[in-house]
């Protein structure tokens, strides 16, 4: 049984495509088996909604009168990067205000823009013959700017480690508040709904793949930063952080239901981003991949009290164990918390399913594949000679 993108898109256009979420398809495969399910189902939708720090947005503010070549930019007092053309800037989700306040950052600016709220723009410049103006203080909104598009260099991680804390004090991390002496454990993957766990070697996901991004139709633009293919696998999927995506999409089409500013106390800000990827059921192999369940997907448990990049995992636990509310670590029953929202992941997969059923979302074949063999390098102290 083989199916092409053309056939699938033809069925989507005529309203005949059979679309299931990655959760629904598990029950169908359990009931009917791979062969029958492959014949029946055209597309499976996935979803994830989690803290994705490597997110941000490019904005072009338009030219002032007289014009300015901005050299420093603040949006609601949060610095944005403007080492680009005159009125272009990039606001990163993890950027904080300069007074050290962690309660409002770039992520909040992005959420405020999507919520159609006014945002204060301040900029300074050194002044040139072509751009004489040296400062500006005004308000912008999503409707006053020329472009505002999200460009996230690292989203939708394929699996991620579970965090716990063996130390005597509470740790405040990007994996949330970790209570002392294995007081809790946090994890952050949608597991059986997560896009890259359902097409583990990215056979159908690559550059140009149309995706659900923050409520808009976005695209995979590149491999994500720290993309690696070398993680150990179990049941055909990586255990631990592996591949991820760089994605792009228009802020104007997004919704605060799927883009949410987050604060990790004493760590900083991050952006909750909703990503969904439709997976075409090209053949039985594809169906086998998308029907993997939480009980067969494993993640390593890491001790964040070890302040090193080389943390050795305690052991691996499955997502069904994690979702049960507790896991065992060092002989102790430890309560678990998810940091990514499974409820929103489900909602994203269902929303994407509906868009496809209604013919509003067509599938795209990737333009180029993401790397099949790639390691992740470390940053070490080197002399000039060592790196030349």
């Amino acid at each position: 049984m083989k199916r092409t993108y053309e056939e699938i898109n033809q069925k989507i256009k005529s309203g005949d495509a059979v679309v299931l979420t990655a959760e629904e398809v598990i029950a169908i495969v359990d009931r009917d088996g791979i062969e029958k399910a492959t014949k029946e189902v055209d597309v499976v939708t996935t979803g994830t909604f989690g803290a994705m720090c490597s997110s941000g947005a490019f904005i072009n503010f338009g030219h002032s009168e007289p014009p300015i070549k901005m050299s420093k930019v603040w949006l609601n007092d949060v610095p944005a990067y403007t080492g680009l053309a005159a009125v272009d800037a990039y606001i990163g989700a993890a950027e904080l205000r300069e007074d050290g306040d962690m309660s409002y950052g770039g992520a909040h600016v992005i959420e405020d823009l999507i919520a159609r709220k006014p945002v204060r723009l301040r900029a300074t410049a050194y002044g040139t013959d072509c751009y004489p103006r040296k400062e500006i203080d005004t308000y912008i909104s999503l409707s006053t700017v020329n472009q505002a598009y999200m460009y996230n260099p690292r989203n939708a991680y394929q699996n991620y480690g579970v965090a716990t804390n063996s130390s005597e004090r509470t740790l405040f991390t990007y994996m949330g508040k970790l209570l002392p002496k294995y007081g809790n454990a946090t994890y952050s993957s949608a597991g059986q709904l997560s896009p890259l766990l359902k097409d583990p070697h990215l056979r159908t996901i690559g550059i140009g793949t149309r995706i659900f991004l923050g409520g808009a139709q976005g695209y995979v633009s590149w491999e994500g930063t720290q993309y690696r293919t070398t993680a150990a696998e179990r049941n055909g999927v990586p255990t631990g952080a592996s591949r991820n995506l760089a994605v792009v999409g228009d802020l104007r089409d997004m919704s605060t239901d799927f883009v949410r500013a987050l604060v990790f106390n004493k760590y900083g800000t991050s952006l909750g981003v909703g990503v969904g990827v439709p997976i075409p059921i090209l053949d039985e192999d594809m169906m086998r991949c998308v029907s993997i369940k939480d009980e067969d997907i494993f993640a390593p448990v890491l001790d964040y009290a070890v302040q090193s990049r080389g943390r050795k995992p305690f052991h691996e636990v499955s997502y069904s164990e994690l979702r049960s509310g507790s896991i065992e670590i060092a002989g102790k029953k430890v309560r678990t918390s998810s940091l990514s929202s499974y409820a929103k992941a489900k909602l994203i997969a269902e929303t994407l399913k509906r868009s496809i059923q209604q013919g509003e979302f067509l599938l795209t074949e990737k333009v180029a594949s993401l790397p099949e063999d790639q390691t992740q390098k470390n940053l070490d102290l080197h002399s000039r000679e060592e790196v030349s």
Partner: protein
Amino acid sequence: MTIKKFLLTFTPDNVSEPVTYRLVKEFDVMINILRAEVDEQGGRLMIAMEGSGMQIDRAVKYLESSNVQVQELKEFIRKDDLRCTNCGACVSICPVRAFVMDSKSFKVSFLNEKCIACGMCVDACPPGAIRLRAQL
């Protein structure tokens, strides 16, 4: 039997009054001290009181007659359901399991009656959906 939670405020004059002892000994109510603090302004004591309705009423009257300011606490924290993303970060933080992740809908509900106002959830909530209503 009912359980009610109260914030008792003491002036510097009556901080040395052994009220919890009297409440237990003379009014036969079960007292669970949730939080306590004494400073220049006097003292604040957050308690859960368990007993019959009549016993609790009598205990409160005694406290008021001893010039202790009594405020019943019905809502310690509030979860903004629009802000909440139902991630579940709060679930493993809460020492008394007042946050529950539903195993079907995967939504988080807050059980007010369990809450002891420790406030540990407030800074553990990434979208900032949890606010403390009553504070010592």
